[in-house]
Structures are given as C-alpha cells and as structure tokens.
C-alpha cells in the first residue's frame, strides 16, 4: 500500500538568501537550488536534474517564473539515477499565492500530469515522487512543505500549501 508523507518545516528567508548569494530575488514563482539554504556562494548552487523539465512545463502552461539566475547563467544539475522522480524546490511568494489562486494548482498540476504520462502503465509501490514547495507566509516568514509519495497524492498539495501560507 502506498503511503504519502508530508512534512512542514521552517525555511530560510528567500529574499535575504538570494541577495547574499548575489542572485535575482524571486518575486512570484521560482525554482530554488537544492542547496539554496546552505551554499556559501553562487558557484556552489545546484539544481535538481528535473529543473529544466519543470521549466518547459511551466512555459507551455504560460506560467512566468522569476528566476534566481540571469538569462546568461545556468546552474549545474544533480542526477542521482534513482527510480524516484525528484522534483526541484518550488518557491511561491505570498503575493503570488494571494493574487493568483490558480497558480499553485497549475504549477503543480502540470508536473503531476507529466509524471502520470512518464509512469504510464507502471504501478510500482517503490516508485515515489519527491517535491518540495517553499511558500512565503502572510507574516513574511517561509515554510517548506516536503512531499514524498505517489502522483495521486500531489493533488492534495496545493490545498496544504495554501493552508501553510495562511492564504484564504
């Protein structure tokens, strides 16, 4: 039987970290490198291997990302060759969550649809999806929602993210 796991924990101040690392400050929707909280310089930042795929999906859905890196920059990506699908850390500002109620549904929904196609016909209980969402709360603090489970469980994630961020 598949069991989906959701954990909520504190996350660093995204604006301050971006500034400290000499990156663009994401204002709406963005992808954060896996070591965003711990890297000591911009050159250390590493994206998940799935990052460009998520960016294609968002582009196709007309979702605009406020990227950390400039157009001429590209952070290396980490590939771990696991059976799991490891998604990047998605950042959603409070302004974006409050201003566009469909943003969180759409940004996660396109990923869920892609993974459903990718795993079509396969039902391995061992095959998991890992996706983390960092959201800015109404009070300006940041929370990380960590998801590990099957593709069906991703449908619950937008509701949880909105609740964690105190968005009505």
């Amino acid at each position: 039987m598949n069991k989906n796991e959701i954990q909520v924990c504190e996350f660093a101040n995204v604006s301050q970290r971006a500034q400290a690392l000499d990156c663009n400050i994401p204002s709406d929707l963005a992808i954060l490198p896996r070591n965003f909280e711990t890297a000591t310089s911009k050159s250390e930042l590493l994206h998940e291997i799935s990052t460009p795929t998520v960016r294609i999906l968002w582009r196709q859905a007309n979702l605009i990302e406020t990227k950390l890196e400039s157009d001429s920059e590209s952070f290396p990506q980490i590939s771990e060759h696991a059976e799991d699908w490891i998604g990047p850390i998605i950042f959603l500002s409070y302004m974006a969550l409050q201003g566009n109620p469909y943003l969180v549904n759409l940004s996660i929904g396109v990923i869920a649809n892609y993974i459903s196609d990718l795993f079509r016909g396969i039902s391995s209980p061992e095959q998991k999806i890992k996706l983390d969402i960092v959201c800015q709360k109404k009070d300006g603090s940041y929370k990380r929602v960590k998801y590990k489970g099957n593709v069906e469980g991703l449908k619950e994630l937008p509701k949880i993210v909105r609740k964690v961020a105190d968005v009505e």
Partner: protein
Amino acid sequence: MSNNLVAEITRQFNATIEHCETFCFITRAIELQKDAVRQIEPFLQQAEKAKGECVKDSDEDAANLIFGLQLSIISLKEQLNMWIELKRDNPDKAWDHLINAKTSAQAAMRAHKTRLTLQNYYNRLCVIEEIVFPPQVFASAGFKVIKSNCSICNKGYGICNHLVGMPYMGQMCTRIIEEAELQEASIVKNPDDKRCRITSFSDNGKWRNRMTWRLTQEQESAPERTAQMIVCSNIITDK
C-alpha cells in the same frame, strides 16, 4: 496514406507477436527461440520504413503508434534473448535482456496510448525478475550535469519544448549529456537502471559471481577492491 500503412504494419505486428509469443517460455526449444528472434528483424525493418513515411506526412500520431509497435516487438525480442542466454548458462547477459525488455515495454506504453495493453505483459516480466533471478544489489552513480542536449532537436535541453521521456514523431526524447562530473556511486534499493549492479564480490581471494554463485577468477592486484560492478547508463533521465 498513413491509415493504410498503419493498418498493414498492425497486421504484420499481430502476426509476428502471435508467432513469437509461443516461444516466450523456458521449456521451448532453443533453436526455435533463435528462429523467432530472426523472424522479428524483417518486421522491425518494415516498421522503420513505414514510420519514415508517417514522418514525411507529418502524421505524429501514426509515427508514435508505429514506434510503440516497434518497442513492443523489441521487448519481445529481448525476452526471447533472455531465455536463450539462460539456456546458454549466461545469466548476467540474460539479466540485461530482461531489463531491456522491461524498459522497452515501459517506453512502448509511453509512446502511444494504444500500447497500454502491455500492462499485463509488463507485470509478467516483473514476476520473471522476482522468481527466475536471485535478488540483486544495485548501484547508482550521481552526476553533476553541466551541459545536456535534447535528442530530438539537439538544442540545449530546456531551451526547446521537448520533454524527456515523451515521444515526438516516432522518437523518444532523451537528454544527451555533453558535459558532466561524477559525484559519487552508491548502493541503492531502487535504481533508475537495473543493469547498473554489483556483479561479483571478493571471497577468499577469488571473485564470486552474484548470479551463478561460481568462484570465477583470482582477485587482481587491487586488494582494497571488494566488488565489481557494471555501470551501464550513458543517458541521464530526469529520474
């Protein structure tokens, strides 16, 4: 024109499948299994030609459907080769054929929705993996990817709109790694590529094969090495 082509290729596919499936059992005679493998080749050539015609007509659905049929037949061929190699006392090669059979069946299901009929076939391969082969120890290599290109259009992956693992005009999109650094290798329970595994381990100065359990050869001049592994993956996927 594509409709006629698809109908003809589907007819050939059904005839080939019907014939070859008869030999996907360990009890079948090896010479008949080898003959079945040979009979698959003409179909694959015909299908490739027909797919080319569909691409010329810009009929993506037909091209992907034929691609799905090709992958299904390739999977069957790999399964036949698995039984053949088992009879030849080559379980390591047989394992690779089994994994190739599973990978091709998975890809076929992604290539075209009509190929979802392969689910039971795929599950059967999973059962074969469980009961015919002993448990394996898998390895996984972690890479830092600096540059990768899309296999469909050869642009930098992410610049175009092609998604890894999805079919486009009868081809599967993969990421071709142009520049990468090996970060680590680890033992994992569920690797992306099950061909990447520990094949033997040291046992009293010799190597013991994990499949046959035979002591195969004297250990070479690297006493600190305690295992031999095969790292097969050259294409990095998103998983």
